């Protein structure tokens, strides 16, 4: 069945959004439209909102069903009610499932959320939690547009952080397929933001960008920060766009900022002898967000009162009153998260304590400008041939709705540019920073049908497998590892890497695990190159990959020589296969499992 619509889905760490565009309409005037998502906002209260908070709440036996128009008996809720319950009953709520998706230290298909759930909850994996979010979007879409049927009948473009590795992309697709989205394609979020800008500027975008321009996309969401560089290049006389670099996965966003301010105000209240319980701390977070927005939008405001209601029905008398001062916002928010730093100042890495709880690898340095400096040092200010400073900047993500934060980023960046004798960067005027990614994703769906300009770029990393050199065992010394490039940087969708002239051996019937590496900086390694050594930080170790050769046609225990071949699927995921050097049948090949848990234990996929 051919799709009538392209659907853009922003599956965010803190919020999801949905946008559609018609495919059938003749070119040019196809409009992208945001679909409001019906969700429970309180028990028994249903509402349509543009954003669906990415939270899943599990009802307790004492509660009535969390009924939706399409399911009267539901025992869980997705969206605003789930978010609100997160403050009241946190053990029953899943938040930030997406961050767990990209966390290679756990088995992301089996690992159970919510982390500290009580025994009555049947825990689910980060993949299933993502599926629940997507499934809710699908149900809400069906309810909102019954004539268009199911999202599975449409072409779906799902956005992922540019910094997602091959495994996290695979798992995202797995969640989408579970939701029935057979025609799904992945798109990097910063690219989606740029597509949204193109869509919104109409033909006018060409006057803002010229060949030779390099756009820095800074995307700061509730939970993550993502950087990309996209070049405007000339292709056969026409302007084209090419994504040239993406940043590391940084778990740092608006929620951290609100938390920091709440901490500051909470500290002051504690000094006045006013102790807060968990509920009041959450309320303080909300109150500080409101106060922060007021102070940021009006720099002449000296302070804003922050009032925490008493929890009982007696509002007056029990309320705790504090205040957030302009100077605190300046020093903790601007100087803490967006300090003016030198282009050479890199984020401080905190050594991990020997014993840590299972938890997300949050960025240890909150200074976003330092993370930006590190990104640009790698991709824009270095000595490599491709290194070139950005000429334009596009802001995205809810946090950057605040003008002073945008100004600080721009000012810092332009300072670095001036030092290098480069011209200051221009700001591309984006709108609708919360919804741009979903809109841009839907627009990209049209682009795939030839309705506009496509951003080229291919994979954002080169991929390597680790090969241990044969050497005698020495106590206390790990055998040295060489890295064999299996997929070069910048592979486009639907392409296959040249078969590298290498040979690996696999025992039939037994899982073999390979160490797996990615690099966002080594752009010229071809498939088959072997790196004996590399600079620190150049290669990042990813969760290991695994291959099991079925015994079919061979004896268990036999050793078979294979070659690894990489391709990028039409969906946009990396596919690694092992091809037998001496095939028993024509085209004998086996799929290699990405995103296996550290330690090489097989997951039951």
């Amino acid at each position: 069945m051919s799709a009538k619509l392209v659907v853009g889905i922003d599956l965010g760490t803190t919020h999801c959004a949905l946008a559609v565009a018609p495919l059938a309409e003749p070119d040019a005037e196809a409009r992208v439209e945001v679909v409001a998502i019906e969700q429970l906002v309180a028990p028994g209260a249903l509402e349509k909102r543009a954003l669906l908070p990415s939270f899943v709440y599990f009802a307790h036996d004492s509660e009535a069903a969390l009924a939706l128009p399409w399911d009267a008996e539901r025992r869980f809720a997705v969206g605003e009610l789930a978010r609100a319950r997160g403050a009241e009953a946190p053990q029953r709520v899943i938040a930030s499932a997406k961050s767990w998706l990209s966390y290679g230290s756990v088995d992301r298909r089996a690992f159970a959320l919510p982390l500290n759930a009580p025994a009555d909850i049947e825990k689910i994996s980060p993949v299933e939690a993502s599926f629940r979010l997507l499934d809710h979007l699908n149900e809400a879409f069906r309810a909102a547009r019954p004539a268009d049927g199911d999202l599975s009948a449409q072409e779906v473009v799902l956005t992922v952080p540019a910094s997602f590795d091959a495994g996290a992309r695979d798992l995202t697709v797995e969640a989408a397929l579970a939701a029935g989205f057979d025609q799904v394609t992945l798109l990097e979020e910063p690219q989606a933001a740029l597509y949204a800008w193109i869509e919104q500027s109409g033909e006018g975008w060409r006057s803002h960008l010229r060949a030779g321009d390099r756009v820095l996309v800074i995307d700061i969401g509730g939970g993550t920060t993502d950087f990309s560089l996209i070049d405007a290049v000339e292709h056969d006389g026409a302007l084209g766009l090419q994504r040239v670099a993406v940043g590391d996965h940084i778990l740092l966003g608006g929620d951290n900022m609100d938390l920091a301010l709440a901490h500051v105000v909470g500290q002051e209240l504690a000094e006045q002898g006013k102790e807060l319980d968990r509920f009041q701390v959450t309320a303080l977070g909300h109150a500080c967000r409101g106060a922060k927005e007021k102070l940021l939008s009006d720099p002449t405001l000296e302070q804003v009162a922050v009032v925490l209601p008493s929890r009982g029905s007696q509002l007056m008398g029990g309320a705790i009153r504090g205040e957030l001062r302009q100077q605190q916002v300046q020093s903790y928010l601007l100087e803490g998260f967006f300090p003016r730093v030198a282009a050479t100042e890199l984020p401080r890495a905190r050594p991990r304590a020997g014993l840590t709880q299972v938890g997300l690898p949050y960025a240890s340095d909150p200074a976003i400008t330092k993370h930006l400096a590190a990104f640009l040092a790698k991709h824009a200010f270095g000595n490599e041939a491709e290194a070139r400073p950005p000429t334009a900047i596009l802001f995205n993500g809810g946090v950057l709705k605040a003008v002073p934060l945008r100004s600080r980023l721009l000012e810092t960046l332009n300072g670095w540019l001036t030092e290098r004798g480069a011209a200051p960067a221009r700001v591309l005027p984006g709108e609708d920073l919360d919804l741009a990614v979903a809109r841009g994703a839907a627009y990209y769906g049209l682009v795939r049908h030839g309705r506009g300009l496509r951003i080229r770029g291919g994979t954002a990393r080169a991929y390597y497998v680790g090969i241990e050199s044969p050497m005698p065992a020495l106590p206390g010394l790990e055998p040295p590892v060489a890295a064999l490039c299996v997929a070069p940087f910048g592979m486009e969708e639907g392409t296959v890497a040249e078969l590298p002239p290498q040979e690996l051996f696999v025992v039939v019937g037994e899982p073999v695990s390979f160490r797996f590496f990615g690099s966002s900086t080594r752009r010229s390694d071809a498939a088959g190159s072997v790196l004996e050594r590399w600079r620190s930080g150049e290669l990042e170790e990813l969760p290991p990959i695994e291959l099991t050769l079925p015994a079919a046609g061979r004896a268990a225990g036999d050793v078979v020589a294979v070659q690894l071949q990489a391709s990028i699927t039409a969906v946009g995921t990396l596919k690694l296969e092992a091809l037998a050097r001496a095939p028993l049948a024509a085209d004998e090949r086996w799929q290699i499992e990405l995103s296996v848990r550290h330690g090489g234990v097989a997951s039951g996929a």
Partner: protein
Amino acid sequence: MTVTSLSLPSRLWLAWLSAFRILFDGRFAAKVAELRVATAAREPELSAAPSSHAQPSAEPEPSPSVAAPAARAVPVDGALQLLSLLQREGRFVDFVEQELGKFSDAEIGAAARLVHEGCRRALHAHARVVNVRSEVEGAALTLEQPSADVKLVGNVAGSAPFRGVLRHRGWRVEELTLPTSIGGHDPKLVAAAELELS
């Protein structure tokens, strides 16, 4: 609960159709609130075929006594949803239900700030409220025609044009989207009691 969810949409539907009926019966009908009520309540089922009743709207003949005015049923569900929304976001019921007597203005002020912020956020997220008149309050204003939008106060006598001073700019809800009730939840429960387990 299915009975409620079935009857509410049909009530809304009737209300919707009635509104069009009023439009087709002429602009002057809208000026007289009682007449509006009467028209809407008296013949909602006829409104399915409004085109045959279309009349030129310029007929300046207000006829305020077509039928005895009948009160419309109050849409209870929407009202309860609004109340529960204002309580959830702005502790509205808590505020209004508490006696102010023994509290200082500072304490009341602190609470008011909270209620104001929450209720304002809730209102702005669910309704678009605009001023009826855009002139500055206290300015001289001449009203060429009587209008249901403007209430005459003071020495109310004579005929249009009316010359006076604008005392209040008025409010009109341009758009309203309230949460809808679903499931077995009792909409009268605007805030459940809370029991914290440790």
